[in-house]
């Protein structure tokens, strides 16, 4: 019995970790900016491309392979530093307070531009770079060999949830974000630079998206089209958890991960629809998602 449960549990957690990284940035941006960023998936795949390129560069120069771990993190920082402020100041800020339709149109336009930008810079071929995965080796659990990298991803996902919670609840920047989320006009009235907070929050969202792509790279190929797939999954997770709820995204990732893994183990033909079936069930019971509500805004 244990032999059957451990793989199910571990696969669900590993799958949930990847899904969480794909969705958390979208959730954070919505919680602070109230913007549905359709281009989120593209930022995820750009993170993957940059990380793969950096790791390939390290390998080609025969540098210390452990630098590839640093490259994964710095790729996300690099993407956030480039795209975060530029995209927020040039495009996203015009959507604040506008209808969801305007937000979706503008960010969808951005999505199309970023997809073409990726094709121009990285080409149309798949990128693979698995040095970090190989360096960490494997572990045999209940007769199934797992990549230690998968276990590291689970730990990192937990660390990101805890880290974001700490940032928002226990740091000055986090409290300022909470104040802006609660009442933007009042926050401005008491002297908070809301533009700066919005830019910071958006850049943090881009960082989380790019980090998700970068961390997925060692176990997955990066190819054109990944952004669209990621975006759809991220929206499903955000809808299940409740738009703008970070803890909700974590729980929703677990639900979607478990649904997918159960489908693969028990009814493989339902694999593709499992995340969306879970979303349907949750939304039928709780139309605003597990942690969402119509009136309360909480980061």
């Amino acid at each position: 019995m244990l032999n059957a449960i451990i793989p199910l549990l571990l696969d669900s957690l590993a799958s949930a970790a990847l899904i969480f990284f794909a969705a958390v940035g979208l959730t954070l941006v919505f919680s602070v900016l109230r913007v549905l960023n359709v281009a989120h998936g593209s930022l995820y795949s750009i993170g993957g491309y940059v990380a793969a390129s950096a790791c390939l560069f390290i390998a080609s120069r025969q540098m210390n392979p452990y630098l590839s771990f640093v490259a994964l993190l710095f790729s996300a920082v690099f993407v956030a530093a480039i795209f975060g402020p530029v995209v927020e100041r040039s495009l996203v800020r015009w959507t604040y307070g506008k209808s969801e339709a305007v937000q979706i149109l503008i960010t969808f336009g951005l999505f199309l531009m970023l997809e073409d930008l990726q094709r121009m810079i990285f080409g149309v071929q798949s990128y693979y770079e698995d040095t970090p995965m190989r360096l960490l080796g494997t572990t045999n659990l209940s007769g199934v060999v797992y990549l230690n990298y998968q276990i590291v991803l689970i730990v990192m996902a937990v660390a990101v949830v805890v880290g974001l919670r700490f940032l928002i609840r226990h740091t000055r920047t986090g409290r300022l974000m909470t104040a802006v989320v609660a009442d933007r006009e009042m926050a401005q009235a008491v002297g908070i630079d809301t533009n700066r907070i919005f830019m910071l929050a958006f850049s943090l969202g881009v960082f989380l998206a790019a980090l998700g792509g970068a961390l997925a790279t060692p176990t997955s190929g990066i190819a054109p089209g990944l952004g669209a797939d990621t975006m759809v999954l991220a929206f499903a997770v955000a809808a299940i958890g409740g738009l703008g709820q970070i803890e909700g995204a974590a729980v929703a990732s677990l639900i979607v991960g478990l649904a997918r893994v159960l489908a693969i183990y028990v009814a493989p033909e339902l694999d593709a629809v499992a995340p969306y079936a879970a979303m349907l069930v949750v939304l039928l019971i709780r139309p605003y998602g597990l942690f969402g509500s119509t009136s309360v805004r909480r980061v």
Partner: protein
Amino acid sequence: MKRIGLSAVALTIGLAAAWPAAAQEKPDALGLGIFTFTSGPAAAYGMPGKNAADLMIEQINAKGGIGGVPVSATYVDEAQGAQGVIAEYRRLAADAKNQVMVAALSSANCLALAPIAEQLEIPTVGWNCDTHQLLTDGKSKYVFRPNGNTVPEFIAYAIYLLDRKPDVKTVAIINPDYAFGHDAATIFKAALKALKPDVEVVAELYPKLGSPNYQTEISRLTTAHPDVVFSNLWGGDLENFVRQASPRGLFRSSQVILALGETVLQRVDLPEGVIVGVLGDGWWMSPDAKANPETAAFVAAYKARFGEYPVFPSIKMANTLIYVKAAYQAAMQKNGGKWPTRAEIAEAMKASKVATLTGTTETRADNDGLVDQIVGVTVKSPDHPFPVIGQMVRYKGDKLMPQAGQDPIGWISTLTPEFAKSLPKPGSYK
């Protein structure tokens, strides 16, 4: 006014009468619409086909083209989806310059384009269409497939497996979730059931085409403890699967069959002993290929230009263009050297037998091709830094094909262990 109307009618009739003759004047260039994947995960399979087409067309044109007419290709990226592919096909077909379509790579696109080819009367050669569903009705006039189909391709793996591992009890399958993946599983299972009925299928997984992550599927396959894992994943999906499954020990715990494994031999680190093949006879290092100077020259030119050896999609594309060229030559020979019409080209393709870079392709009455099947296992090579195919067998194409019009799955169920025993054995093709 009446006079102008009559003149217009006369001019129209005159032009219409002159058209058949005009169509047989040699054009400035022979246009080919070539459909393949040039972007996305499937480009790992599609680009070698495009590369081969570029090279082959260059070589044909260097020798004076076809019937003295240079060949000019327009490439269509199949990654845009079936609707886009259909629109591009119609657009190219509307241009009289484009006489033949080399379409397509994806079985799904081939099935979508076949009725349009018949409707527009455009000779359409499936350079990689594998699904046996393509020509089952036997009524096709303009759709041809000189590259074999899923029936002989996947029966060959079942026979090879039972020769190599006769005590196999359990099998797991992981194939892409569309026609090609499901057809392959159906045929492979039907062949195993006919040849060794006690084999049990313990897991069947069909991940979405283009899926980047297979970790859960690999866990599922491992927990099923199958003797054999069969897969016809391809392109970037196959590369991803191998990169993820190899460190997790799947290749050690089960005998793995990668039906399209030859395409990744130069790209990923495949261990020894994996059963691989080329879905036909397109292995550039086969004894027949090595003995053919034209093939050796093509391989050398391909390696020099693209930095790697041709994989079997490259050979399939090259063989398809040889097939098209042979059809033009046959049609022009038949009509006294005039430039052939689309109908004459299609007629020339029927019942043709063409020598290719790696063997022969014979077109049956139902327009399906008879091509030999090469299967083997990965072995280390002293000559290359990547594994090659060893312990090869070459099954005759007609041995593994039902008669035209016969239900393929019904025919497979009639196969017997005695039939398998009558076929050549692993290692016999050297």
